[in-house]
């Protein structure tokens, strides 16, 4: 692999992982804001309106960051991955175009009304704007996942005479069997994250003894929604997604599990370190037969190990393995914590258990890590392919951009994003410290 391929990969990895921190929250928070706006409109209760305004402020900051860090992603298809764009532009242009036309315009236009329109437009149109912003965010997630699902499992294409791929069927692209469970898993993860953020911020207010009513609303909504979505993150969305990986990307599955030997009744590795020199999992803690069951629904099923594939077809085994185990481990931890919250709620002790509120407060970073780790599994596990089975990553880069140029821009992005990250966290903390409006219309600053 040449220097320029490594530089291009680092730049894309870094910029997309930083970018994704923001859509996680906006995609997840948007439907929760709709719920609050609906309660406000239905019950005529200004407290829900104040809560919706508070979360809309958090949403707006994250949305702006999502837009700002999202533009470089679309640019990089052309600037750094020109051969990929020339090869697959006829296909990924369709899904990215659908995203631009049907979701970005919708989302940004109605976010304008949501942020600037209160008091200017009718309450009903204001409510509708929150619904359309959520619809835009979720459509955007759909089309970008459709683009990724095509790279994971290409369908609906045909190879043209010049060697590029062209669209065969747009319906096949959107009906990709890989797409819908992946989409469900991604969006479910976003809602789970937003719910945890909500619970965490609410826990802060209860611990600090400020805005108690708003704090209780946030903790209740966060724990309630979070518990449900933590469970559905594992089953069915996570489970069905890994079945798709089993069916379409068996090498990735073997890397995720650190499975080298093909086995009937393959074990599920809980701990252990995969070694690509010794071709085995070092120091493993395993549950016998469970991987076979998870992958194929039968404890005796055969699961192919990495040794059955040439090493040139392997992804980075360790990275895939650790990222997968981090994701699953944190997901399990979130399920445990949120179910504990539901149990306390059941006993009427949720808002008074300071120790548990502390747990909620400190839970905040973990859904982010779990989401990012999940994408690392998905993308690193797809290597060495850029488009699975069709285009290798090394063949996708821009031949006319030197490694030095990309390293120069990587450093530029690193500096800029370090500053942006610090400022965003700082401003988000300021929003939280200021708290929700106490009166319904105390908005003017």
């Amino acid at each position: 692999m040449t220097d320029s391929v490594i530089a291009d990969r680092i730049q894309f990895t870094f910029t997309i992982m930083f970018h994704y921190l923001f859509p996680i929250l906006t995609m997840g928070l948007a439907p929760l804001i709709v719920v609050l706006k609906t309660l406000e409109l239905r019950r005529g209760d200004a407290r829900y309106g104040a809560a919706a305004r508070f979360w809309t402020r958090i949403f707006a900051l994250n949305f702006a960051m999502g837009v700002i860090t999202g533009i470089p992603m679309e640019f990089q298809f052309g600037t750094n991955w020109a051969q990929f764009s020339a090869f697959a532009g006829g296909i990924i242009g369709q899904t990215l175009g659908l995203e631009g036309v049907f979701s970005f315009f919708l989302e940004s236009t109605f976010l304008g009304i949501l942020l600037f329109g209160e008091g200017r437009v009718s309450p009903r149109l204001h409510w509708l704007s929150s619904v359309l912003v959520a619809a835009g965010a979720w459509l955007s997630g759909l089309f970008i996942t459709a683009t990724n699902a095509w790279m994971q499992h290409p369908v609906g294409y045909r190879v043209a005479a010049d060697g590029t791929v062209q669209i065969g069927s747009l319906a096949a692209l959107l009906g990709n069997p890989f797409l819908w469970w992946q989409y469900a898993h991604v969006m479910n993860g976003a809602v789970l994250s937003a719910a945890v953020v909500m619970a965490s911020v609410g826990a802060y207010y209860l611990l600090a003894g400020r805005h108690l009513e708003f704090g209780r609303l946030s903790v209740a909504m966060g724990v309630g929604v979070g518990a449900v979505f933590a469970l559905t993150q594992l089953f069915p969305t996570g489970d069905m997604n890994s079945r798709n990986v089993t069916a379409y990307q068996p090498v990735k599955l073997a890397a995720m599990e650190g499975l080298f030997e093909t086995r009937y009744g393959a074990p599920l590795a809980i701990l252990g370190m995969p070694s690509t020199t010794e071709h085995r999992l070092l120091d493993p803690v395993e549950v016998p037969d469970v991987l076979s069951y998870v992958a194929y629904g039968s404890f005796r099923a055969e699961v192919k190990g990495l040794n059955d594939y040439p090493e040139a077809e392997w992804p980075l085994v360790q990275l895939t393995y650790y990222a997968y185990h981090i994701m699953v481990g944190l997901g399990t931890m979130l399920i445990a914590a949120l179910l504990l919250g539901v149990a306390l709620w059941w006993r009427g002790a949720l808002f008074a258990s300071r120790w548990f509120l502390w747990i909620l407060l400190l839970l905040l970073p973990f859904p982010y890590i779990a989401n990012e780790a999940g994408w690392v599994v998905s993308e690193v596990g797809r290597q060495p392919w850029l488009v699975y089975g069709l285009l290798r990553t090394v063949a996708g880069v821009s031949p006319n951009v030197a490694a030095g140029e990309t390293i120069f821009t990587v450093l530029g992005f690193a500096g800029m994003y370090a500053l942006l990250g610090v400022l965003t966290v700082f401003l988000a903390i300021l929003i939280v410290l200021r708290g929700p409006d106490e009166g319904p219309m105390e908005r003017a600053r």
Partner: protein
Amino acid sequence: MGTFWFIVLAVLLVGYAVLDGFDIGVGALHLTVARNDAERRTVLNAIGPVWDANEVWLLGVGVGALLAFPRAFAVGFSGFYLPLMIVLWLLMGRGIALEFRHHIADPLWQGAWDVVFSVSSLLLAVLYGVAIGNIVTGVPIDEHGWFQGLFASLLNPYALVMGVFSLALLMLHGAYYLCVKTDGALHERAHLAAGRLWSIVAMLVVVLTVATFVLRPGLLGNYWAYPVWLLVPLAAGWCVVAMWRAHDRRRHGAAFLASSGLIAALLVATAVGAYPYLLRSRPFPERSLTVANAAASPAGLIAAAFWLIPGVVLILAYQIVAYRAFAGKVRLDGGAHY
């Protein structure tokens, strides 16, 4: 189908230039026409609800090119690697400044973001002009079909004059937008600025027309072959005159329409001159990327046309809803997010 998508891209580009053009122009004027915090907030809230949706048109141009002419997108974007990264960082600077400024009510914090917002808008306006100046000139595509844009040659005098012109034109366009959206001292300053900018724009229109005749005669071929298209540059000239008459009568809405028309006419005139080239190759014209040799498969282009048309109708519908919701002068009392 290639030609249809060439027209689609031209329309998207016109949409971007007219819509984001005014908020970039407003940004370039920001420091000079708005002198205190209330005025600056008025300026920012005037574009606040719409600038983000306006910027989506740029994404539309990029993705439209990827979809319809993948090879041209790939060669152009990678060839102009560093200049595009600069555009990217300027776009980011503008967006950050808009969102970050209002969070802390401190004059230094706000002043700093005002400068970031204004300077990045100003440089963007210049760079867009330079970019158009270079694309119509042509790039050195090698025998494998790629090129590397070089800074020194990008900043040639023709392109630099285009950059200055683009800045003046977008500032003029933004000034009329501010005239429509504001009142009081801010309105008067925007009106005065528009008057001065109009003379610069009118002068540069003449200079650049002559310069194009002399330096870039290749752009005129289509006009000699199909003289009916000369109506487009004539329409641009008419917009310049109409703008002055509207300005004199203080009919700023009409002047804004005229500046929109001028931007649209100039871009269409450029597109007519460039057709069928997407990326002209110099000195080997046979390596050029055209609507014929860079297009994606006809099936894909037709499929995309089927979703694009209802999509654009929807976009226009909700943009109309948005602009109507915010019609009239900006008020800072209710619903001012910035």
